[in-house]
């Protein structure tokens, strides 16, 4: 059937009539919501969706407001990156196995992409997977892995053929984080805490049924993940924005205001309003079936705005800006931009222009794919990965 606003709303109300969140177990409620196709309405029927336009998710969310949610912040990597990749490249069996517990939050996901020697140049990665019968044996080291310490599963890119140029020798897997040989070590950050990890993979055996996509096609599969990652980082509308937090500080501390800060703050208010309008326009384009290139820039804009806002807040606070709230070495499950103080926000926001593709890489992508400018000459083209200087 063709879904519209009214029919999705009707579906959600009918679901609520049969499932009273006040008396139901939280997880049971979420599972039932998934089964009713109201988890992500643009997914296919049977996989948490209705095959409806993506824009109608807002209708479902509105109708189900106030009911138990799946704590999207805690499972952001699964929702934003693993799920769209599994949907695009997974087998029917993989989709049925992974998507429901991923969405309900019963199983947390992490992303095993970056390595100590492969960050922006991700395709250089060296973690290898060697086939042994129906299994793959994985050895290597990954880094900057958010949530690895709470994750049940990971999306993993590994090298399966070192004899071909780097982009062609990669294969994409789902990695079992409970498999023997997976070791997670916290990586303490600039903020004092460890939301990232290093992950050491030593002789980890993964069945071939955990492979996602064809052997040697891992780069193409990874592109889907990376594209979705940038949308997830740059495009998530949140109820409380960084602008809102800084504005509250401004309103509550009139003695700290100066004319210089006032003009800069108003400029950032305009910037965040322009970013909001750009996102509105992008969503309208998506809903109309014409995805625009605007999305490529959202993460870039978001990173700059966050850094400038949090930096201004520390400066505004003067003496209080000299203090830091807490250097305790902790391992949180999420990034807390709202609950912590300005110093933390400033330090953590600096990472927004590095994680999920640096701002420099994103500028290259915009310049080459949107504006059609020529690539820089490359030294690694047509050279087998094993022959690249390292």
């Amino acid at each position, binding site marked *: 059937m063709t879904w519209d606003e009214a029919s999705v709303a009707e579906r959600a109300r009918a679901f609520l009539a049969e499932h009273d969140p006040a008396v139901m177990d939280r997880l049971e409620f979420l599972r039932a919501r998934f089964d009713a196709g109201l988890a992500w309405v643009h997914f296919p029927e049977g996989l948490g969706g209705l095959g409806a336009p993506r824009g109608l998710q807002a209708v479902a969310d509105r109708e189900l407001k106030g009911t138990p949610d799946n704590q999207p912040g805690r499972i952001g990597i699964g929702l934003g990156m693993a799920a769209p990749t599994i949907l695009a490249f997974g087998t029917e069996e993989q989709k049925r196995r992974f998507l429901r517990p991923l969405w309900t939050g019963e199983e947390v996901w992490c992303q095993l992409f970056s390595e100590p020697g492969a960050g922006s140049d991700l395709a250089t990665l060296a973690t290898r997977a060697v086939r042994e019968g129906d299994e793959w044996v994985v050895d290597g080291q990954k880094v900057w892995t958010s949530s690895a310490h709470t994750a049940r599963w990971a999306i993993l890119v590994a090298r399966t053929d070192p004899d071909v140029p780097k982009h062609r020798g990669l294969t994409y897997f789902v990695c079992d984080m409970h498999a023997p040989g997976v070791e997670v070590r916290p990586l303490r950050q600039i903020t004092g805490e460890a939301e990232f990890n290093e992950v050491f993979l030593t002789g980890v055996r993964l069945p071939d049924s955990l492979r996602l996509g064809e052997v040697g096609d891992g780069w193409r599969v990874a592109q889907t993940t990376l594209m979705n990652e940038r949308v997830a980082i740059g495009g998530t509308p949140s109820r409380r924005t960084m602008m809102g937090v800084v*504005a509250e500080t*401004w*309103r509550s501390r*009139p003695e700290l*205001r*100066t*004319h210089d800060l*006032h*003009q800069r*703050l*108003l*400029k950032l*208010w*305009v*910037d965040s*309003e*322009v*970013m909001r*309008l*750009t996102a*509105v*326009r992008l969503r*309208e*384009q998506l809903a*109309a079936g014409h995805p625009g290139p*605007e999305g490529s*820039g959202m993460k*870039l*804009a978001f990173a700059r705005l966050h850094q400038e806002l949090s930096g201004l807040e520390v400066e505004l606070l003067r003496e209080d800006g000299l203090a830091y709230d807490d250097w305790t070495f902790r391992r949180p499950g999420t990034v807390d931009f709202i609950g912590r103080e300005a110093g933390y926000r400033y330090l953590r926001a600096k990472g927004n222009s590095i994680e999920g593709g640096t701002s*420099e890489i*994103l*500028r*290259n992508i*915009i*310049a*080459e794919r*949107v*504006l*059609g*400018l*020529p*690539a*820089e*000459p490359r030294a690694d083209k047509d050279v087998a990965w094993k022959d690249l200087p390292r």
Partner: protein
Amino acid sequence: MTLLYTEVEEELRAAVRALLADKCSPSALLDRASRTAESGTPYDAELWKALARDIGVAGLLIPEELGGTASREGGASAREAAVVLEELGRAVAPVPFLSSAVLATQALLTAAGQKARGDVAAELLGRLAAGETTAALAVSFAASPYAPPSPVATLGEDGTVTGTVTGVIGAEAADVLLVPVRLARSAKQGTGLCAVEASPAAGEAVRVTPVTSLDLTRPIATVSFDSAAARVVATTDGMEAPWVWEALVRGAGLLASEQLGVAEWCLTTTVAYVKERRQFARPVGSFQAVKHRLADLWLEVVGARAAARNAAARLAEAPAGGPLGDDAAVAVAVAQAHCAAVAVHAAEECVQLHGGIGMTWEHPAHLYLKRAKADQIALGTPGDHRDALAGPADLPAPV
């Protein structure tokens, strides 16, 4: 409300763009600029006639019942006027659309909404809509909507206007000058809007003196009235002149679309140039230092489009005659604060990334830089518009 372009808007854009491609090429513009830089008006009367009369852009903001095409039921609106301004900005077209079809028209529409003297306004609007008459609002282009100037001309007891207004755009091309005036004919205070015919018959009573303008494609002039015959369009007892404020703020909102057009031309032209131009045996556009600047500029333009469309859509929801709501006022201020700066940045990058050729008279880049910089001052600077947001954003200034 949508921030996308409708099919009708795209058709209008295509018509305007085709006409401009034919009649307003960069080389024709440069010829005209060279001929008129020292003297004469740069306005292209033929082009304006074709736009105003044949395509009908002059009546986009004027309601159907007054001879225009604006209506609540699917007719034209500020959205269509904005699309025309995008194209005129992209071509830095030397036509009095902003001065006549936006600023002067808007002042008349507000005056017509005041009822009392609506007949004069309605008659003038009918002539403007038909594209037969061109008008100009005799207010400085540098006036800010947040500090509208008090009238500097006076309406005498004999019904004539006397006074001098500086920094006026579109005056040389105008058949009718709309002058905000102080009322001097009675003991009571008050202001008004007068219409002065600028035909040669007016003789020495109306003088339009061109001033050498920073913007070669949009000149400014000093307009002097010396006991000039006038018709009263509207009056009010107070010193607040709603027609001036409405014209300035709505004009500012639509100016954002012109700035978007200027920025788009600069970005597109520069991208094309750096793909062709080679240095160090590579296209200049393959260097990251250049690519990153253009990527940043593209992102600014993407934001400018969203902000300008939002302003146009909000203005379309607040039809002429009625007061502008808070949402529309915020949308205008946001669009101006962002788009003015983007246009200037785009034009500066355009000159810079063209290297030496960008600094020459023979390349059109300078026409865009001059337009962008003049537009930044026009109808409130970005700082004026930011200040105006302090209230709505609840970010109060220091005490």
